[in-house]
C-alpha cells in the first residue's frame, strides 16, 4: 500500500498575514504560521508570529534567544502554541502532528543517539520508527550512511564517534526515511573547519535538486550564505526581514566593486571628482557608490585613463548577509 501523497506545499493555504510574506510571493511554501503565540509559563517567546517558509533551502537567522529553536520545536509539535496556527507541508500542527513528523527530518542542535547501537542499527531503527519496513530501513540506512560519509564506520558504536561523525550521523538519521522537509538546527556546531566544509557541502547537496526542502537554523552567517537560497531573520519572536538571498543582498544605491592591479589614491580622487564616493577598500579592491544617473563604466574607465590605474574588473556590489542581518537586527 502506498502512502497517499500529501500536498507538497502550502500554496493553497491563505498567506500569512505578515507584511513580509510578500517577499516569497508566488513561491510554493512548505510551512507557515499565522499569529502563532508560544509561551513558556509567563514568558512569551513567540508573540503572534506570522511567517512563510518557501520551498528550497531557507536560513533561519537570529540572535540568541530570538525564538528560532522554539519555532522549530513548535513546527515539530514538541511545544503547544497558546494561540495561532501553524501548518507544515499543508498539515495542521495541532491535529496532524504524527503525519507531519513522518514527512519531516530533524537534526537537533545537541548530540543525540540511541545508546548501545552501531551506526547502521541506529539509522535503521530511526527509519523503522518512522514507519519503514525493517528490510527497507536497513537498506536505506546503508545508503544514507554512505552518502553522509560514514560508510567505513557504520558498524562502530555511535558512542565511539568523534564530534564530526556524530554530526554526520544526526544528518543520516534525519534523512533515512526520505523526508520532504528537513530541519537542521546549528548543523556545524562543534566542527573543525574541514568538518564544517564537508557538512555544508552535504547540506548544500541535499537541499538542491533532490526534492527536499531544508530549513537551516543558525547564527553563523557564512554557513547560511553558503547553503541557503532565502533567509528569514527573526528577532524577539518576530520576523524582521525575509526574502531570497539574491534580493536581500541587492543594494538600494548604485554601488560597485572594482579590482585594480594595485591600489591607487589618485584613481580614488579621480572617481571622487566625478561624483563617486569611496565606501571601503581592501587592498586593491575598492567599493564605490555613484550618483544614480552616472554611467558606471564610462566613469571608471575615464578615471583610470586619467590616472593610469589598471582596472581588472568591476561589478555591481552586493551586500553581504552580515550587513543585511545587522541592519535587520538594529532596526
Amino acid at each position, binding site marked *: 500500500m502506498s502512502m497517499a501523497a500529501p500536498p507538497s506545499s502550502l500554496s493553497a493555504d491563505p498567506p500569512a498575514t505578515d507584511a513580509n510574506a510578500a517577499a516569497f510571493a508566488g513561491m510554493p511554501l512548505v510551512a507557515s504560521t499565522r499569529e502563532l503565540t508560544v509561551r513558556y*509559563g*509567563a*514568558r512569551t517567546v513567540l508573540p503572534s508570529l506570522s511567517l512563510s517558509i518557501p520551498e528550497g533551502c531557507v536560513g533561519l537567522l537570529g540572535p540568541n534567544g530570538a525564538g528560532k529553536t522554539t519555532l522549530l520545536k513548535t513546527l515539530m509539535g514538541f511545544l503547544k502554541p497558546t494561540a495561532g496556527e501553524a501548518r507544515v507541508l499543508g498539515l495542521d500542527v495541532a491535529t496532524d502532528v504524527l503525519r507531519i513528523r513522518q514527512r*519531516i527530518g*530533524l537534526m537537533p542542535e545537541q548530540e543525540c543517539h540511541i545508546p*548501545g547501537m552501531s551506526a547502521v542499527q541506529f539509522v535503521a531503527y530511526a527509519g523503522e520508527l518512522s514507519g519503514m*519496513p525493517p528490510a527497507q530501513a536497513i537498506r536505506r540506512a546503508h545508503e544514507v550512511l554512505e552518502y553522509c560519509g560514514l560508510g567505513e564506520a557504520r558498524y562502530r558504536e555511535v558512542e565511539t564517534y568523534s564530534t564530526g561523525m556524530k554530526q554526520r550521523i544526526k544528518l543520516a538519521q534525519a534523512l533515512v526515511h*526520505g523526508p520532504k522537509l528537513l530541519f537542521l538546527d546549528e548543523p556545524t556546531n562543534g566542527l573543525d573547519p574541514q568538518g564544517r566544509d564537508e557538512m555544508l557541502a552535504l547540506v548544500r547537496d541535499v537541499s*538542491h535538486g*533532490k526534492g527536499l526542502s531544508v530549513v537551516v537554523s543558525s547564527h553563523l552567517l557564512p554557513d547560511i550564505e553558503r547553503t541557503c537560497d532565502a533567509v528569514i531573520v527573526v528577532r524577539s519572536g518576530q520576523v524582521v526581514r525575509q526574502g531570497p538571498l539574491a534580493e536581500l543582498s541587492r543594494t538600494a544605491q548604485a554601488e560597485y566593486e572594482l579590482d585594480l592591479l594595485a591600489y591607487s589614491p589618485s584613481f580614488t580622487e579621480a572617481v571622487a571628482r566625478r561624483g563617486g564616493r569611496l565606501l571601503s577598500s581592501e587592498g586593491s579592491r575598492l567599493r564605490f557608490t555613484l550618483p544614480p544617473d552616472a554611467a558606471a563604466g564610462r566613469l571608471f574607465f575615464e578615471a583610470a585613463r586619467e590616472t593610469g590605474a589598471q582596472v581588472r574588473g568591476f561589478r555591481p556590489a552586493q551586500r553581504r548577509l552580515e550587513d543585511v542581518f545587522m541592519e535587520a537586527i538594529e532596526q
Partner: protein
Amino acid sequence: MTLEPDHAEADEATAPVTAATAGQSAIADVSYRNYDGEMPLRPLLARAWTIAAATVRANVNRRKFGYWIPAALILVINFFLGIIHYVTQNVRDQMAAQAAMTGGLIGGLPEGPANPYALTLYQGVTWSLFLVFIAALTVGSSTIAADNRANALLVYFARPITRLDYLVGKWVGLFLLLAPLTLVPSLLLYLFFVATYNDVGFLKENPTLIFRLLGATLFPAALHASLMLGFSAWSKTPRMAGAVYAGFYFVVSVLSGVAGNILLERDQEQKQAKTTAIVSNLSVSGVASGVAMNLYDVTPRQVVARFQSGGRRRRRPTPSPSPTPPAVAATPAPSGASPAPAAGAPDGAREPRRPRRRGPVVLPERPGMPAMLFVGGLMIVLPLAAAHAKVRAVEVVRG
C-alpha cells in the same frame, strides 16, 4: 554555451567527492536519493512493538551477566524444587501404599498440603523474586535513563511516535525480558509434573493450574517493569535509576516487614489478621508473593508445614504453669564474679538451663487478593503515570 546559474558552480565545488566527480568510472552511486517506498502511519501497537523489539534486542545482544546469572539461578532453584517435590511425593505415595498393605502396621506420612503442585510452583516463584529484582535492575535501569542521557528522546519524538507509544514499547520490552525468568522455569516444572504424575488425570485434577501459573509468574515481571520504568524515566543515568530503585525496594521491604512483625506481636489473638497480612506484604516482593499465594491457593501455614521455612514465625508466649522464680540477686553481682547459684540449686552448681518453651507458631494470614491486586495495580500504574509526565522531547523550563 549557456551561462549556468550562480549556484551551479558552487554546487559543483561543494558536492561530496564521489568516484564520478573524480573523473573515474563509478562502481557505486552514493548520491542522495529520495525514499518513495511504503511508509504507512502505523497503529499504536505496531509503533510500540518496534520499540519493544529494539529494547529486547539491545539487552540480549549485550550479554548482561546481571540478567543471565539470575536467570540461570532461577532455573537451578526450580530444578531442585522439582526434585524435592518428586522425592517427597514418591515417598509419601509409597508409604501410604505400605500402610494400606500392612493394615497400618507401617504408618504413612502425615497428610501433606492440599495441592503439593501448586505449593511447589508457589515456592518456585517466591524464591525467585529477589533474582528477578536483580535482573530488573540490570536490564531496566537503562531503559529510559540511558535515553535521557543520550538525548535519544529527540530521536524518538521527531518521528511519528507519541509518549504513550514510547512508554508502552519500553514497558513491553522490559516485561518480555523479565517474564521468562519466572515463566519458563515454572512451565518446565509444570511439564515435569504432568510427565511424572502417577496417574493420567493431572490436567483433569488441576484444570486451572496452568492459568494460575501464568498469572503468578507474569505478575512479578509486570510489577518490576513498571517500577523500573518509573524510576528510570526520572533519572539522568542508569546507575542513578538502579540505585534509587534498589533503595526503594529494600527500604519498603524492611518497613513492611517491621510493621508486619509489630502488628503480629501486638495482635496475639489475631483479631486484625487481615490487616497484619496486608501490611506484611506491602513491598514489591510482598505483593508479588501475596498475589501468587492467592492464585495458587496456598497459605503461609502450608508453606511452613511443608518446607519448614518461607513464612514469618512468631512464637506465642504461653503462660507459665508456675510463677517465674524471682531473680536471685537483688543487687548486681560485682563485675567478674560468677552469678550466684539459683535458689534450690545445689551449692556450687549452676542453675540448669531452662528448656525453651515452644509455643504454637503464629503466622500471618494470607493477604486478601483484592487488597494485593489493588496495591499491585497502584505499583504498576503510578510509575507509568510518573514516567508519562516526565518523558518529553524537550525540557520546558517555565519562566
